């Protein structure tokens, strides 16, 4: 049971990564298309710009929700990296509690804001903004579930992964 669950988890993880990679590929392609249309064909197009901005937003929140692992997150490790597994468990428990509480109590207001945005549509593709912005709700819920999981692991006695700064790339 446990191993098949784990297999399913890693299968889902790989699919989430496929989607993120596809989003980035689409941003890249949209830009090339935009440049080609403007300079080679002399036809400026706006919808490619809109696609890339939307996908950038979705890529970041989707990636943060489902793709980026705990090892890859950018964090401040002066204390976290120096303490043993026991202390790390306690620290994870406290910060998870804060994240779960704050993301959960803000959730109704966030849902309100996103659904309110249904009155607006994007300029080129005329997509309703509540659809475009719904990714934040997905992100918030996924984050809450992720931290419930981390807190549960910490309670059960499994310390969170040691921090690996070389995996946490911030692009600078």
């Amino acid at each position, binding site marked *: 049971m446990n191993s098949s669950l784990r297999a399913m988890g890693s299968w889902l993880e790989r699919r989430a*990564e496929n989607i*993120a*990679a596809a*989003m*980035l*590929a689409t*941003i*890249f392609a949209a*830009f*090339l298309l935009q*440049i080609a249309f403007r*300079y080679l064909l002399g036809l400026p197009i706006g919808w490619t710009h809109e696609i*890339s*901005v*939307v996908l*950038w*937003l979705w*890529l*970041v*929140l*989707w*990636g*943060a929700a489902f793709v*980026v692992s705990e090892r*890859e*997150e*950018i*964090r*401040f*490790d*002066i*204390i*976290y990296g120096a303490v043993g597994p026991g202390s*790390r468990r306690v620290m*994870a428990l*406290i*910060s998870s509690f*804060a*994240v779960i509480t*704050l*993301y959960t*109590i*803000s959730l109704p*207001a*966030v849902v309100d*804001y*996103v659904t309110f945005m249904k009155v607006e549509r994007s300029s080129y593709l005329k997509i309703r903004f509540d659809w*475009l*912005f719904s990714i*934040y709700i997905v992100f*918030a819920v996924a*984050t809450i579930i992720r931290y419930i999981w981390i807190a549960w692991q910490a309670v059960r006695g499994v310390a*969170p992964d040691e*921090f690996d*700064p070389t995996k*946490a*790339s*911030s*692009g*600078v």
Partner: protein
Amino acid sequence: MNLASPFSISLVAITALAFLGLPIGHAMIAGSILYLLLAGLDMGTAAEQLLNGMYSNYVILSVPLFILAAEFMNIGSMTDRLMAFCNALVGRFRGGLAQVNILQSIIFAGMSGSAIADAAGTGRMMQAMMTRDGRYPGSYAAALTAVSSVIGPIIPPSIPMVLYALVSDASIGFLFLGGVVPGLLMALSQMIIVATTARARNFPVEKPVPLRKLPRITWEAFPSLMMPVVLLGGIYSGVMTPTEAAAVAAGYALLISAGLYRSVSWRDFYNALAVSARTTASIGMLIAGALVFNYVITVENIPEGVKALLAGWNLSPVGFLIFVNILLLLLGCVLEGTAILLIVVPVFIPTAQALGIDLVHFGIVVVVNIMIGLVTPPYGLLLFIMANISSEPLRDIVRDSLPFLFAMVVALAIMTFVPETVLWLPRLFGYQG
């Protein structure tokens, strides 16, 4: 400052959560939600600021594209050819390979905007070349690759400069131009250190490449060497926006790696996309957190408060720059560079403006500071990466990087006190500053 105010409490919460090891992006979002809650404001504002900020910013789209460009360059054999080219030029001098290391960093800098990508991309090969047959001590080679990678984001293109443009509204095109001379200055300072230590430590000389072979080696490296020309030429002729130039850079890197050098498999292609997507999500979360927290900072009018506070110190522009340099170098020892750029730097921008400091000059000084922070212990990402690649103890790498660190701080002082080193080139292209 009132210690029980919503702002103070949320600031303490963010700091505490970050110290507890919560990812910095989440710490900033959570802390900002706490602020909105305590101040009795609509908590939906957190989502509003994040979503609109990410959606309405066009320049920022160049970040994922520059990351992708660097990944595409690293999978191809562009690196090998450039290394052969650099070796033909400077390998014949004492400490030749060490000079090759710096020269190829300069050339790479003209194509990539990320120091981390440069070190990760060329570090392994450089390390293997320099330590073969015990030519150079492993820790020295690792230290040199770490410090020479610093040049990457100072010479355009540059991801940190894009982030600075985001928080300061300075022109990204002029920032890019402003980085050229300082980047060369940093390289020169490192080359001087190599040249002086090469004699003292009796570093080897590479077998000179015969001059008749030079045209062929240059020809093979030519498509890669043309990349900065395509990129910067496109931006400054006004043909492309910097964001489009980032896409062109990625396209060009893919084209020559896959088309010309035929060294890219589908697996490589997918991996480059996946790694870039992951990096984009990580850095994007920091940007997202900073957007939300910067809203709080603006509501509380913090930058103006800092301006008033610093005005009380009666700092001269030079005094202010010295203060910022020292502060950023110290912060760079313990904090991640992107976080400093997105959270700490915006607070000082109004003061810089009030003191009449040019924002392009300020931006370059800030970026150089943050880059030096990547090689200062205890938290120096480039040191970690090279320790990982070379399997040398971190302590030895730090020891061997100290002379370079000193030289880079001298170079930083020069560009701080002589603004013309930064502003000369942008002015040549019509910058009114």
